[in-house]
């Protein structure tokens, strides 16, 4: 029963990822695509957390932490580039 609920939760998050992909492909401006990509990072962290509960191992948390850090840094880098035309001045 518990693993069934976990599978249902994982499929809901996967559906959210698919909707993000749709809005990433659609987004009229570049900022919309950047927002959709950032949401995809956060949703993949959520998917990794639930998968870690499903196989009951702690191995995936380091991967989730790495995705969180790299996603934040890359989003801020692209934002700086779009604001100033340069990342490190």
């Amino acid at each position, binding site marked *: *029963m*518990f693993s069934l*609920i*976990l599978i*249902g*939760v994982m499929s*809901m*998050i996967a*559906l*959210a*990822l698919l*909707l*993000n992909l*749709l*809005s990433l492909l*659609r987004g009229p*401006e570049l*900022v*919309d695509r*950047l*927002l*959709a990509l*950032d*949401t995809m990072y*956060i*949703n993949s*962290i*959520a998917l990794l*957390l*639930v998968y*870690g*509960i499903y196989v*009951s191992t*702690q191995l995936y*948390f*380091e991967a*989730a*932490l790495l995705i*969180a*850090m790299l996603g*934040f840094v890359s*989003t*801020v880098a692209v*934002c*700086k580039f*779009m*604001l100033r035309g340069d990342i490190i001045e």
Partner: protein
Amino acid sequence: MTGLEWLISGLLVVGALFVLLGSVALLKLPDFYTRLHGPTKATTVGLGSLVFASLLYFNLHQQSLSLNQLLIALFLFISAPVTAHMLIKVALHYRLKAFINTQGQDKVSQD
């Protein structure tokens, strides 16, 4: 299923619902300024609920102390507002078109 498993399942379902709601808001809302609300608020609340469920599962159900999830939650709660601030600065810099019913357009300087 024990009571603890029911509690963890409830937290997981609420978290997944909020994450899904954030993505639906990202897809359905009319302009960028309203679209930013979904991922920055609903998705963060959903991820907080998922992290809390994961914390309960590994610390109480598995009987082993682990605080890794708390690190993820802390980092995301710090980084999500910063990301939203940068994105809205980019949107104001490029002067994106707002939907006619979006509130607060008069507060943005129209120079």
